[in-house]
């Protein structure tokens, strides 16, 4: 049970990261900020857990990373979506929409 809960959270984090990168390349800190701001402070990413998730996404070929200069001229690692990442985002978004619709139906009828 604990394992499935953890998987759900990890899967959701991956989807949120992919969605944040859909508009363009971001570094890790910006991704965490983007998720928090887009959710109007409801979702707060545990900042450290973001990086293992990003490395996994990179391993799967859904994002690719490149070092660049940040807005304050510091060296930062920027992540961007690959073509495979875009496809994965579409799949995960559709799965999520189906799941949330199903849960909403259950909540309305039960």
């Amino acid at each position, binding site marked *: 049970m604990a394992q499935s809960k953890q998987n759900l959270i990890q899967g959701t984090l991956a989807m949120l990261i992919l969605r944040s990168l859909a508009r363009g390349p971001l*570094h*890790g*800190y910006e991704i*965490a900020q983007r998720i928090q701001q887009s959710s109007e402070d409801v979702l707060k990413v*545990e*900042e*450290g*857990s*973001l*990086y*293992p998730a990003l*490395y*996994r996404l990179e*391993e799967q070929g859904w994002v*690719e990373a*490149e*070092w660049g200069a*940040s807005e*304050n001229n*510091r*060296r*930062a*690692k920027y992540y961007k979506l690959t073509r495979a990442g875009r496809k994965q985002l579409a799949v995960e978004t559709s799965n999520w929409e189906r799941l949330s619709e199903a849960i909403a139906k259950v909540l309305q009828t039960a």
Partner: protein
Amino acid sequence: MTTIKSILRRLGAPVRGEAAVREIEDELLFHIEMRAHDNIAAGMSPEDAVADAMRRFGDFDQIRTVCEEIRKERLAGIMKMIKGCAWVVLGCGLMLKMSSKIFAIQNVGDFLILIALLWRLLIHLREMQPDRRRVIAAIRERFYGGPLSVSGFMEDTPKPVPTYDKAGRTPVERLISDESSDETTK
């Protein structure tokens, strides 16, 4: 263009070793630094800002180790592919050498066999090399205290220690002192 760069970076990963490990650390520290800057901008003192940034980030050493493990998994796949390629080149070389009666083609075969053998030798030497990072970590444990000096025996898997700079400061100490000096300059 980016795809070519990314492929080259992937193939070059096994030889980057320590540099790639340093990149992980740089990336994690950058995150903490950004959070600390935002905290200072929000009115916190440099010490509080860094402490809060570290708390929000979580266990730095553990996260770095997890990232390194993921990177190693990826490298294992690339190394497997490189080993496979060496066997393919060796096979092609042997085939050219044995099947052709033309001297020039036999020479090409010899050349491919030589390349493949050197390739395999390099892979073998690399695999024999001990994990330098672990050795360095063990030496640091000895100097900075830890399992070796406390209990008198070496643990099988020593806990990774932060990378110290020339002045012997940990990344966090470095960050606090940089923030303090920035504040003094202002």
